[in-house]
């Protein structure tokens, strides 16, 4: 459990953030300059709030009213910086041991660091550096892990190399993680809780699925990146055409690609702009996926678009249609519609486990 209440004046920018999140991965999402890094720095002790309180479970790190300000080195936060910040004069092994030797063998094994121990940081690739930085933070046995855009400096290939480690970390290490990112697909794959920041404030905070399915969040996430996440289960593979059959409470989806073994649960981010709505069951359509849905909310945007919240079984979906279509179809809460999702709408980046 993380509870933050941070007020800090930084020039003409004011940070005034309230956040409360259960254990798991809490993603802090927002555009650059929204105060994400300042928030994380305040937790680490690198930024001293003017007022407020910071606590990890019962462990109070900062409380302006009670005069508590635990020094940085006594906070037991593991901080993975965007630029890794490995000590250039120390080998990988000595970098790892700098903060402690907690669970060293397992961490080295989990992050695949065995072959790197004798190397110097300058000889590592970007992805390797981030893995070492992550291992170093974990080996000091932190009570919280802070990650400030740990993948932002990496190309798509390196990202794909690290993400599985982060998923393992989330599932195997029982440490709360505060994960700063401005990449929706990254957030959708990793986070359990999502907090969205705007102009120094946390404007929304809640379970990932709920937040991403909220039509009010569309302008904050950006119209191109908005989209709900659904949980499904791998039900079969159609070997002849490379498609995977996914079942969820709202129906069946056919998606290209490998989603893992039979019975594997997956999370799927479906971009709102790739969902088409129809009043009757479509025929003669190339799209493979048609779901029966109920409209739960309609939220006009500032431009020509309208965000439509939908319910399919127990899952939420989000669609983005034009204001004109919404008017013509008279879309309103309670209405039953068909949602058409193109099988190729979901890219490999949008698939999580």
């Amino acid at each position, binding site marked *: 459990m993380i509870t933050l209440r941070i007020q800090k004046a930084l020039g003409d920018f004011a940070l005034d953030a309230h956040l409360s999140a259960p254990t798991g991965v809490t993603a802090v999402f927002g555009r650059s300059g929204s105060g994400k890094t300042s928030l994380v720095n305040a937790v*680490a002790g690198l930024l001293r709030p003017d007022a407020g309180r910071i606590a990890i479970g019962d462990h109070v790190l900062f409380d302006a009213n009670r005069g508590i300000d635990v020094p940085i080195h006594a906070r037991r936060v593991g901080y993975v910086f965007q630029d890794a910040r490995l*000590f250039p004069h120390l080998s990988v092994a000595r970098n790892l041991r700098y*903060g402690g030797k907690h669970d060293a063998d397992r961490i080295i094994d989990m992050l695949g660091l065995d072959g790197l121990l004798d190397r110097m940081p*300058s000889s590592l690739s970007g992805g390797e550096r981030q893995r070492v930085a992550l291992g170093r933070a974990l080996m000091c046995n932190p009570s919280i892990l802070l990650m400030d855009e740990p993948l932002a400096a990496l190309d798509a290939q390196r990202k794909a190399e690290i993400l599985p480690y982060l998923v393992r970390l989330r599932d195997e290490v029982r440490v709360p993680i505060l994960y700063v990112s401005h990449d929706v697909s990254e957030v959708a794959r990793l986070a359990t809780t999502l907090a969205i920041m705007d102009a120094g404030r946390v404007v929304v905070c809640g379970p990932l699925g709920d937040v991403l399915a909220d039509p009010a969040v569309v302008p904050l996430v950006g119209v191109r990146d908005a989209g709900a996440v659904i949980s499904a289960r791998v039900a079969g593979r159609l070997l002849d055409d490379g498609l995977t059959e996914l079942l969820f409470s709202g129906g069946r989806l056919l998606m290209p690609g490998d989603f893992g073994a039979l019975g594997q649960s997956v999370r799927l981010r479906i971009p709102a702009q790739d969902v088409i709505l129809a009043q009757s069951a479509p025929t003669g359509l190339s799209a493979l996926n048609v779901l029966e849905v109920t409209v739960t909310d309609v939220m006009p945007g500032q431009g020509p678009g309208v965000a439509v919240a939908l319910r399919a079984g127990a899952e939420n979906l989000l669609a983005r249609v034009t204001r004109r279509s919404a008017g013509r179809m008279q879309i309103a809460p309670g209405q039953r519609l068909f949602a058409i999702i193109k099988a190729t709408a979901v890219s490999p980046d949008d698939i999580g486990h």
Partner: protein
Amino acid sequence: MFGPEEMTTIWLSLKVALVATLSALPLATWIAYILARKSFPGRQLLNGLVHLPLVLPPVVTGYLLLVGFGQQGPIGAFLNDVFGITFAFRWTGAALAAGVMAFPLMVRAIRLGFEAIDTGLEDAAATLGASRMRVFRTVTLPLVVPGIIAATILGFAKALGEFGATITFVAAIPGQTQTIPTAIYGLLQVPGSEPAVLALVTVSIILALGALLLSEWLAHRMARRLGRA
């Protein structure tokens, strides 16, 4: 090639330069650190004071040392009475003059070293549980070593060549305070001493060149170790 007198001069020069550099090093490191990292009232004044020997005529610096650290000088008399340390017309005085003249160059080199360190690394060390003292010892200091090496070699070369302040403060007494530069100057006043002058000039060139090459080699090695090359 070298008579006993020249040998004495060479050894004395090396001793003076070495003692001057090594004594100045800790203070220069400390001053460089606070100039690079701390802000406090009087910082610019301290900066100016440190650089004074670089811009003053050396003879003025020598004169000020004579007034302050001479036998009748307030500091000189105090050190002589309380600790039995005498600077006036001793090799220790030559070392003091050389150290004071080398000091600004050393501070500058070390300060550049401190300023080149990414303070983000120190933040990272702190989040890993290192106290401020441990951060300084295990991150800051090792990373400033290239600057310290550069400062030592630069300071040593400067101390070896110091002339104006030295001759003003402690004169050029053979076997006591006569260093290579003051010896060369003295010999030039005596007809027929060209071979001795040539020998000392050669030694000067070799020492200066050696120091330069050593510093280049060390800098290169350091850069390779830190992955900057």
